[in-house]
């Protein structure tokens, strides 16, 4: 009453100020910018595009359902401007492309004090910045941030049409896809329209509520086929009817509007959608199928199943190429190996490995001290492993660590002693039967779009389960190369890509047998040999 008489009403009549927005890729909390010039350039390019698409969706009237609160935006990589005007603002969006998490924060600055108004955390992805190529994803992130903001959208007199007075806003975008890829949050049923001021003394927002708007109609977007392109969803809008009080107030200037449930009321729902979208997008990225995912070229479920099942199945053949010495060398030179390999490189079983190697029984007639003797060797081994990998950020693209479990069957009759004429003096039986083996392999991978080169080193030790058995140990290292880009073979609706394999490995094997002659003080109980196999193979990837 006193205030009314004194005419000292609070100065809310001031024109609404639409702020500039700074969108910052926070380098401290983000993965390292690639050192390679070309990759660093690509990373910057991706960020610029991401920032542009996000900034646009956060701008007044340009977000989904009419949301959008900022008049302009500029993009920063750390403290460096990468696009837009470098001007101060009390509003920032901080983006973290971290190795452990992806984070978006809407930050309000009041002098030296900053407060996080809205925050969303999602699983990390090395393809994260590319996600913004998708308009649907950009809408999702922008809407989430605006939903948490004290200003959701700006309503101006110019937007009001018809009787009863209403305004319309665009619907959620699907990007290039013919259907929405993620859950689409519902447009708010009711909006509160208000003037807003920041109370610097109390450090809080003060509003002057003018009225409300009610969602009166939703026109969903429709599938439309563009010439030479896949069909996609276009159009669609949401209509809000305003009260006469709001209509009258708009004559004096624009008003802010936000869901009547208040800022941040949908945070948990939006957080879930963002996290889910990240998992799907990351999977698509890992399978080099991001663009397919964006266009929705395949049904989403099929894509996910595809991604979940992605991997390699290959066969290979190798021949021993190291020059052999003596009788054992002569035997080993004749050996060949056949292999089957199966690797899961995506999906929930990513990292699972299975290898089967077999050396068919190979015989060699050797000259012995008392006449010809026959040496032979054969083995087969099943190995199951699981691969963990990480990007070290330098030298190679990926480091893998593969613990392995295996079962070896090893049967050989090998020369274990020679006379002075280098004739076989004694043969040893190494019938280890089925051995249980443990192994560990470390690999370094260099990846490109058409090849993968992998250097590796592994150790294995197998223990025979037979009483008369023994032990087999293996130290080996090698190089594998996969060359993709071969013809694609259709197989039950799935396109199988072909790849050529080439490999070489060196292996040092030590055999210990419990049944080998143990007479005398210098009893021989084992033998060791080195082999090197080179070969080729064929793999199918899906």
């Amino acid at each position, binding site marked *: *009453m*006193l*205030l*009314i*008489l*004194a*005419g*000292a009403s609070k100065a809310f009549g001031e024109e609404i100020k639409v702020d500039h927005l700074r969108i910052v890729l926070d380098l401290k909390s983000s993965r390292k910018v690639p050192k390679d010039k070309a990759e660093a350039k690509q990373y910057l390019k991706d960020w610029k595009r991401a920032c542009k698409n996000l900034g646009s969706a956060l701008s007044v009237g340009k977000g989904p359902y009419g949301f959008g609160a900022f008049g302009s935006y500029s993009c920063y990589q750390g403290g460096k401007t990468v696009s837009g005007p470098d001007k101060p603002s009390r509003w920032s969006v901080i983006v973290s492309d971290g190795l452990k998490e992806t984070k978006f924060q809407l930050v309000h600055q009041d002098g030296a004090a900053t*407060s996080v*108004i809205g925050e969303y955390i999602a699983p990390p992805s090395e393809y994260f910045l590319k996600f913004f190529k998708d308009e649907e994803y950009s809408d999702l992130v922008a809407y989430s941030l605006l939903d948490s903001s*004290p200003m959701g959208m700006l309503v101006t007199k110019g937007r009001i049409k018809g009787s009863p007075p209403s305004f319309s806003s665009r619907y959620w975008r699907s990007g290039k896809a013919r259907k929405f890829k993620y859950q689409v949050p519902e447009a708010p049923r009711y909006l*509160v329209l*208000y003037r*807003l001021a920041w109370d610097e003394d*109390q*450090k*809080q*927002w*003060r*509003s*002057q*509520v003018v009225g409300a708007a009610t969602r009166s109609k939703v026109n969903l977007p429709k599938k439309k086929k563009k010439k030479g392109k896949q069909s996609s969803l276009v159009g669609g809008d949401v209509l809000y009817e305003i009260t006469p009080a709001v209509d009258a107030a708009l004559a004096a200037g624009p008003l802010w509007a936000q869901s009547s*449930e*208040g*800022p*941040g*009321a949908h945070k948990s729902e939006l957080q879930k959608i963002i996290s889910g979208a990240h998992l799907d997008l990351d999977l698509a990225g890992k399978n080099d199928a991001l663009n397919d995912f964006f266009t929705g070229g395949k049904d989403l479920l099929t894509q996910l199943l595809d991604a979940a099942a992605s991997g390699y199945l290959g066969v290979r053949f190798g021949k021993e190429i190291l020059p052999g010495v003596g009788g054992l060398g002569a035997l080993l030179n004749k050996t060949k190996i056949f292999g089957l390999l199966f690797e899961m490189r995506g999906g929930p079983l990513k990292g699972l490995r299975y290898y089967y190697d077999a050396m068919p029984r190979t015989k060699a007639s050797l000259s012995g001290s008392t006449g010809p003797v026959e040496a032979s060797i054969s083995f087969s081994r099943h190995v199951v492993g699981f691969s963990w990998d990480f990007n070290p950020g330098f030298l190679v693209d990926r480091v893998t660590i593969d613990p392995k479990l295996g079962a070896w069957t090893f049967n050989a009759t090998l020369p274990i002693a020679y006379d002075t004429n280098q004739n076989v003096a004694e043969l040893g039986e190494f019938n280890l039967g089925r051995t249980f083996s443990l192994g560990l392999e470390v690999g370094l991978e260099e990846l490109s779009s058409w090849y993968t080169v992998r250097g590796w080193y592994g150790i294995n030790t197998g223990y025979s389960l037979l009483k008369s058995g023994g032990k087999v140990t293996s130290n080996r290292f090698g190089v594998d190369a996969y060359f993709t880009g071969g013809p694609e073979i259709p197989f039950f609706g799935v396109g199988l890509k072909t790849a050529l394999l080439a490999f070489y490995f060196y292996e040092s094997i030590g055999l210990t047998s419990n049944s080998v002659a143990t007479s005398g003080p210098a009893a021989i109980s084992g033998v060791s040999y080195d082999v090197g196999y080179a070969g080729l193979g064929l793999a199918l990837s899906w």
Partner: protein
Amino acid sequence: MAKIWQSVILSILGSGAMFAAPGTVGAQINKPNVAPPAVESSAPPAAGTAVAPAATGGVAVPSSSVGSAVAPVDSGAPVAPVANSDVPVFDAWVAEASKKAGVLPRSVVFVRSLGETPGTELRFLPLDTEAFNKLSFISAANSTNADWDFKLNKRKFAGMDRLAAVVALTGADCVVLAPEKGEWQVIRPDGAKRTILSTGQAPKSTANEDLIEWLFISLGWDGIVLDQKGNYLLVGSTSKSMSFPQIQALAVNDSTAKIVLKANERIGAGLLSLREAKMGVGIFDIVFLGQGITSIPIGTKLVIEKKN
């Protein structure tokens, strides 16, 4: 008029009254040497007098039938000022007084629920603030804005005491906890402390008029001194009380620090008469002061003559 009321008061208070003899009023203004009137709650109401609300203990003040010479005017219509060149200019004085400290309460907020028990939320009583604020000098916080501001500042208020949050949101110096069921409370928030000033039955409705009436009954007084200039007092009250020209009031002695007055705390400090008013604010002439009283300080509470 003053003589009439004065004689009525004397007749009510009988030998216990300490007013000067009738006919000396004009002289008393500048000679404040008369004893203050003892306004006792136990005094029986005389015939033709109105009884103050039971909650206040029944302070007797003259009724309109006694002051029949005073013609009631329509509510909200300005009371015509008596020509006098040294009377402060009304609007300028109101503006000046609005900046002065010592007046409590100036603003009130009605809260349905503080949301302090699980499953409840902070809710304000919906109110037509504009209409409410025309009915008295006490302004009500805009419940719609407060409600929305609470949502806008949810992070800030997340861990804050709810009463403190209500004050931060509204700037009110008096909170009325007004649940849908049960008794209502007038609460004085003071930092981390909260003082329940009064508890009573809810008003018969949440119409603005009923809320105002309930509030002043709960406070135990009808007006408050906003400022003093010479022989004039600027007084905050209800528009209804201020709508009667030359209505009279008793200034209650030693009441500046009290927000709620009890019946036995109403010791008269002086007699006042309304000169000029707009809505819930009026300029009163000091008719006379009690013995030893030299001024009526800001924040002094008034008991105003009741008229219908």
